[in-house]
């Protein structure tokens, strides 16, 4: 066996370029596979770690606006420890807002809600956060705090680490004090809190505990501090996108490797024949070739798993944007399991790609193998063409026919479609070649006639063209997808064109912000009113307590100012309190029709309302998931959420938003708000998407490189395979210039045809991709932008024409006598 291994290794060494190409293709595929496999878990762990580092041992948080006592809560458990907090928002001597969190400091350290350095505080002693230290506050200093027209002197005992709850809003000014200090300022009795954290001591029935409190108490906000379910839900979408990229990358790599493999086998046929003639059975020969391919898989799988693991931690950090909180850095850990799975994946993939061709080659009689009776003429197999055609047509028909198609089906149909295209392509090429031959015959151009025949019948040309069509159409779709992702805020940007400042996270109802109108330079204050909660279910007819694919966001407007939500068939201003409009895509997805009567159950609010669906809207400007419904303003404000989601400020002409941002922030005596210019707000949103796009472009870049090298390789080997043919042509009827012309024309025409077909194919694959994205709840609205595809194809075309230099150089160096000596 040693000899066989040597033979295999030397094969790899002798064809470094090809070996590297296959290795690299598998590596890419394995890396993406490993990322898809682990990113969801990795993200989940990271988010979980982050939340745990903030909330320490606290598992459940119960809060209200008005102070409450522990005894006020009806609970179903008595084994727990708890930490009560009382907080207030005041201002300092310069009227800057400051919030104080009061708690039993020692207990908070035990709960890991504060860092170890915090010690017990006496009355009117405080710790300050890092942010205040940066502003020049020092230990020992006495600070004046104003709260409800009274002044208090507080002594700074020290600075607290940015850990636990101190890390939630590191940019705010926050004091930490004993509960007695805060309660005495608020003038309420001891034992009153506005937030209580519970540690259930490893009790895994946290959900039950939360549900019980929700069901038996009114007006409390009750939540798990770390809600694994919603974290998992959020991360699964990202891994689904990675799977789509994996699918496309793998399809592309399939064609790169299989065309390389065909060439490798074709070249090796005499050697295979020799092995067989000295007594290797068919099975043994198959095994030897499979083993050789398995080697690629093993190495590529190993390195792919390593690279994938490291890229994974990069990718997951791209996706995480927990507001203001420093994300826990998960230590990259490469497990044996990951490596084994990576190796298994790459090896299987490689073997699946090559095994059919290996077996087919070995089926040939030994005599044909030894004397390599292969020729470069493409033999069309009728059965394959027919099957290809059936796959092509049926995948499109099924795609159109199946309503509410699921993700897996789309994936399968996409593969069927691509396989269908790949198998019908030779026929298309032969038809086109016949047409061209006819035209050239009419003109009487002999080079043209030979060339057009080659295009339809030369193995290498057909194999390269297949690669071009598949790779370029899939890449075009990916490009359009990422373009749509990049553009998903253009709608919002357009709508908010006249808005200068955006204030997020306000705490009061809209009337209480009237004072903003008095600020010099503020022309108008607008309110964005909505209600988001993830515990909304609905009842429609016999369907009781159903979940939506994504929980709906409720939107309402007092008057039509900016078109966040486009009306389609019903005026938002005409809505009555028991009427509702659905985003059209969201309604389709959840099978909701005009006229439906639907009862929504609001878990947190513990209310239910029944609505009649009056029509549809388009919420694509508002968010890409489009999980939006519109209700009357009255209903939203009075029953669901009286506090606006955002305040939008329009400035008078001549005022600079960047300066006004600070003016407005100072004027607002409120903690926890963010004032941003519209540009800042949108760029921040876009920044979150940019990471995804960066990854997509990385995949595109690698794929283009792969496809290009693959085609270059095809050119080289195509020429080697055709040496004899070219030598004969040269010795009998054509001079080198004519041969050059023929080769050039071949490349120009065949790639032009390929790209033309790729354009049509990409149109359909884009529809598949679009539907896939919609299926996971991203209405990216991927449009078939011909110009983008055209530009991309033009670049590819130029690159493809450049590959001509390879056969040109070889032709120059070719010695005809050598080539035809053995004839």
């Amino acid at each position, binding site marked *: *066996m*040693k*000899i*066989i291994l*040597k*033979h295999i290794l*030397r*094969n790899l060494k*002798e064809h470094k370029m090809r070996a590297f190409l296959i290795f690299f293709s598998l590596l890419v595929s394995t890396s993406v596979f490993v990322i898809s496999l682990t990113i969801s878990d990795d993200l989940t762990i990271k988010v979980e770690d982050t939340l745990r580092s903030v909330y320490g041992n606290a598992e459940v948080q119960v809060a209200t606006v008005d102070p409450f006592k522990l005894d006020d809560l009806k609970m179903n458990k008595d084994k727990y420890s708890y930490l009560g907090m009382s907080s207030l928002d005041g201002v300092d001597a310069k009227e800057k807002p400051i919030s104080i969190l009061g708690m039993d400091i020692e207990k908070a350290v035990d709960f890991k809600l504060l860092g170890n350095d915090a010690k017990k505080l006496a009355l009117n002693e405080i710790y300050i956060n890092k942010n205040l230290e940066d502003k020049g506050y020092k230990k020992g200093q006495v600070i004046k705090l104003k709260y409800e027209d009274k002044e208090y002197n507080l002594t700074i005992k020290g600075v607290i680490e940015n850990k636990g709850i101190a890390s939630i809003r590191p940019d705010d000014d926050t004091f930490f004090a004993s509960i007695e200090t805060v309660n005495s300022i608020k003038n309420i009795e001891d034992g009153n809190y506005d937030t209580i954290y519970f540690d259930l001591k490893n009790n895994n029935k946290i959900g039950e505990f939360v549900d019980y409190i929700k069901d038996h108490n009114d007006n409390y906000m009750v939540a798990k501090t770390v809600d694994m379910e919603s974290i998992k839900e959020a991360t699964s979408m990202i891994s689904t996108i990675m799977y789509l990229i994996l699918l496309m990358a793998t399809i592309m790599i399939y064609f790169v490797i299989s065309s390389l493999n065909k060439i490798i086998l074709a070249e090796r046929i*005499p*050697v295979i*024949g*020799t*092995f*067989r*003639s*000295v*007594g*290797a*059975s*068919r*099975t*043994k020969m198959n095994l030897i070739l499979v083993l050789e391919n398995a080697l690629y898989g093993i190495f590529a799988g190993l390195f792919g798993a390593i690279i994938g693991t490291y890229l994974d931690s990069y990718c997951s950090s791209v996706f995480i944007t927990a507001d203001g909180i420093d994300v826990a850095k998960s230590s990259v850990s490469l497990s044996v399991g990951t490596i084994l799975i990576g190796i298994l994946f790459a090896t299987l993939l490689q073997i699946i790609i090559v095994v059919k061709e290996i077996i087919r080659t070995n089926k040939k*009689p*030994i*005599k044909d193998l*030894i004397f390599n009776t292969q020729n470069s003429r493409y033999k069309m197999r009728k059965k394959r063409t027919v099957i290809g055609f059936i796959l092509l047509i049926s995948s499109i028909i099924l795609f159109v026919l199946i309503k509410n198609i699921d993700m897996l089906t789309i994936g399968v149909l996409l593969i069927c479609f691509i396989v269908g295209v790949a198998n019908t392509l030779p026929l298309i090429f032969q038809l086109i070649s016949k047409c061209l031959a006819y035209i050239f015959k009419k003109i009487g151009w002999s080079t043209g006639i030979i060339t057009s025949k080659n295009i339809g019948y030369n193995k290498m040309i057909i194999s390269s063209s297949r690669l071009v069509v598949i790779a370029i159409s899939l890449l075009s779709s990916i490009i359009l997808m990422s373009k749509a992702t990049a553009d998903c805020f253009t709608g919002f940007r357009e709508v908010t064109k006249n808005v200068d400042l955006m204030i997020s996270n306000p705490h009061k109802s809209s009337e209480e912000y009237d004072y903003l109108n008095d600020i010099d330079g503020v022309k108008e204050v607008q309110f964005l009113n909505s209600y988001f909660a993830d515990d909304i279910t609905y009842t429609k007819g016999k369907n009781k307590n159903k979940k939506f694919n994504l929980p709906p966001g409720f939107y309402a407007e007092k008057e039509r100012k900016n078109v966040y939500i486009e009306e389609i068939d019903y005026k938002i201003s005409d809505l009555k309190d028991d009427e509702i409009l659905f985003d059209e895509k969201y309604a389709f997805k959840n099978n909701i029709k005009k006229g439906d009567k639907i009862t929504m159950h609001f878990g947190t609010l513990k209310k239910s309302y029944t609505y009649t669906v009056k029509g549809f809207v388009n919420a694509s400007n508002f968010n890409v998931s489009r999980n939006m419904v519109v209700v009357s303003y009255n209903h939203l404000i009075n029953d669901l959420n009286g506090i606006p989601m955002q305040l939008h400020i329009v400035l008078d002409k001549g005022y600079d938003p960047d300066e006004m941002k600070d003016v407005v922030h100072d004027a607002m005596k409120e903690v926890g708000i963010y004032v941003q210019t519209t540009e800042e707000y949108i760029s921040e949103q876009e920044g979150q998407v940019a990471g995804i796009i960066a990854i997509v472009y990385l995949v595109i870049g690698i794929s283009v490189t792969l496809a290009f090298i693959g085609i270059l390789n095809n050119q080289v080997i195509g020429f080697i395979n055709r040496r004899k043919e070219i030598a004969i042509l040269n010795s009998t009827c054509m001079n080198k210039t004519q041969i050059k012309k023929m080769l050039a024309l071949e490349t120009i025409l065949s790639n032009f045809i390929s790209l033309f077909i790729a354009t049509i194919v990409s149109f359909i694959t884009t529809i598949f991709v679009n539907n896939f994205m919609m299926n996971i709840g991203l209405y990216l609205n991927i449009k078939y932008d011909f110009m983008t595809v055209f530009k991309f194809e033009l670049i590819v075309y130029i690159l493809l024409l450049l590959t001509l230099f390879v056969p040109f150089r070889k032709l120059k160096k070719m010695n005809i006598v050598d080539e035809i000596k*053995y004839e």
Partner: protein
Amino acid sequence: MSIIKIDKLVKNFGKGENEVKVLKGLNFEIEKGEFVSLMGASGSGKSTLLYLIGGLDKPTSGTVYINDKDINTLKEKEMAKLRRKDIGFVFQFYNLVQNLTVEENIMLPVVMDGKKEKDYKDRLDKILSIIGLSDKRKNLPNELSGGQQQRVSIARAMILSPNIILADEPIGNLDSKSGKEVMDLFKKINKEEGITILQVTHSEESAKYGNRIIRLKDGEII
């Protein structure tokens, strides 16, 4: 008992109008230890006959018996075994695996037979000295002359001590001096190892190395 027996062997290529009748019902036998030369004009079907005997191709009708066994009834695996153990092939263009050394090429049949290489070390040394290439054992094929390469392929055919060596124009591509060396080698292994040899040749001179000549013309023995 004859080691090779050909019975009404027919081979046609192509179908319908394109059908070419290459072998038209051949009958002959070769005894163990014979050295037979097969002669005939180019295109007379010599190679075709050789491949049918070696099981590289299948006859249209008729039977090839090796050691009284109809090779057409053998399964693919048994056929591979037959090629490994009972028959050695030598081709005009040597057919050496270019990236394996001389000794690795010679050892290929041993590897394919699943035998341990070290058990064949002595045999390898002996064969290398028979073909006179002991000093070139670590060389790659392209570092050898044509005659040397052909001797390597003969060594490969001999390594498992086959009963028969089938050679298709083994010196067709060699100069006369190298050709003579190869023919001497055949004579030697036929005598010393008792291997039956069936060679296809164009040259009357090399045909004389054998003890019998079979002539083919238009698909028939004359």
